[in-house]
């Protein structure tokens, strides 16, 4: 299994590197998908097939699809590639790269110096063991995560609702304002009044039909 681990880890690292250096957004996303599948393979090689399968189903199969979906909708052309190229100028990434390199060095030294042998073993974790661990010692974390997701769901549903009631209220308010304005100007009518009301009416009409 060690060969499988190192090969898929290498693929994941190389693909992630290409995600950063690639200037074409959709090509970068393809590398990100490959990288996630590489990480899933690492899980398989480490004897955690359940985590590996979930990695592909959740990340590669659902979240990345939404990423690709959004990037496809943006219709990014040559200008986006140019912008990416400008952002990848060496002056911009030199500093963070050196700092990250220091961190990598520290980690490598710790790994080589410490006694971490026996991590890649043939032992396979089953879905049942994962479930027992999740709903045993990590019960509180799972419940908190569930509440967080529920809050996110409620927020998303609030942001995305068609807002029929709110729109109607807004329209009524605008109408009243307009009526007040007309009433106050009734004593001295101005010729610009008609186009002004037209302009104010248009957004409410569109909002009502949407």
């Amino acid at each position, binding site marked *: 299994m060690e060969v499988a681990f190192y090969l898929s880890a290498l693929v994941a690292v190389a693909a992630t590197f290409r995600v950063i250096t690639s200037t074409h957004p959709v090509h970068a996303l393809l590398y990100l998908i490959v990288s996630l599948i590489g990480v899933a393979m690492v899980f398989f090689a480490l004897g955690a097939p*359940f985590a590996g399968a979930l990695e592909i189903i959740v990340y590669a199969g659902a979240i990345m699809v939404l990423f690709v979906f959004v990037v496809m909708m943006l219709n990014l052309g040559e200008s986006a590639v140019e912008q990416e190229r400008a952002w990848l100028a060496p002056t911009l990434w030199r500093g963070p790269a050196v700092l990250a390199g220091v961190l990598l060095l520290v980690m490598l030294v710790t790994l080589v110096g410490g006694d971490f042998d026996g991590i890649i073993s043939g032992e396979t974790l089953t*879905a049942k063991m994962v479930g027992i661990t999740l709903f045993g010692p990590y019960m509180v974390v799972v419940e908190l995560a569930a509440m967080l997701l529920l809050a996110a769901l409620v927020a998303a549903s609030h942001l995305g609702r068609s807002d029929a009631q709110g729109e109607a209220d807004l329209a009524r308010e605008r109408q009243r304002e307009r009526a007040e304005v007309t009433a106050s100007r009734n004593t001295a009518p101005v010729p610009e009044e008609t186009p002004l009301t037209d302009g104010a009416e248009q957004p409410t009409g569109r909002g009502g039909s949407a």
Partner: protein
Amino acid sequence: MSWWTPQVEATLFAMFQAVVILLAVVLAGALLSMFERRLLALWQDRHGPNRVGPLGLFQIVADMLKIFFKEDWIPPFADRTFFVLAPGIAMASLLLSFMVIPITPGWGIADLNIGILFFFAMAGINVYAVLFAGWASSNKYALLGALRASAQTLSYEVFMGLALMGIVAMTGSFNMRDIVNAQEGFWNVIPQFFGFCTFVVAAIAVTHRHPFDQPEAEQELADGYHVEYSGMKWGMFFVGEYVGIVLVSALLVTLFFGGWHGPLLPPIVWFLLKTGFFVLLFVLLRAALPRPRYDKVMSFGWKVCLPLTLINLLVTGAVILLIDPAA
């Protein structure tokens, strides 16, 4: 003959099995394109393709020759990498899913203990075929088809997974072979009837079959995501769709209808008969049903099927705990 050890024999037999299953599936997919046209004609009171060979049986040969010899055209405005990659993903992800399906007690390619999850993973990867094909074609119709496809597939994959969790809870395993063995004499379709209904709907939607063929929708999208494809690349999408039908039929048989179990006849015959029945059912659905509007498809998925699967899962869990609190 010192190298002819039992291990070598087992390896060779496994490879032989894999090749036979692969060929059978691809052939079934290709032949199905012809059988479907004949069956649709039968049910719609038409003749269908009946000229080439006896009963029109050689129509498939003519079709395949035509597909192979057509010019393999890549539009100059297309993104080459993605344009070539998409049909490969479409075909490969579906064919790989057959890996986890146990055909008979002795036949089957891989005995993974995450069997169902492997199918879900492959179904998740399959979305990219349509998405990449639609985007790489640089065509408005193709892009619209791809957008519809990804939204539809994502929505329906959510409860496709949940629909099967009732079975997993009952069997106590993701392994397909365990699930078939647990159904001896008592098929899962009886206790998991709502799971079965929602899984059928989700399976048709994920393979973009009629009446859920929104991504293709000939009348409004001019064939959707594969409008720019020709020759064998288009053929791979085409055969891939039929491979998808065979796959979901085989899955329905394995998960809900007892797999190879059945009286009198040998296991392989039962498996093929049951799978054939569901393939016929999918063709009949195409012959009988009109295509609903796109927003109706989406709201049906989220507002009817998803709550139904959740209730089903909840009731299944409660019943399992009621019968056997220790498990």
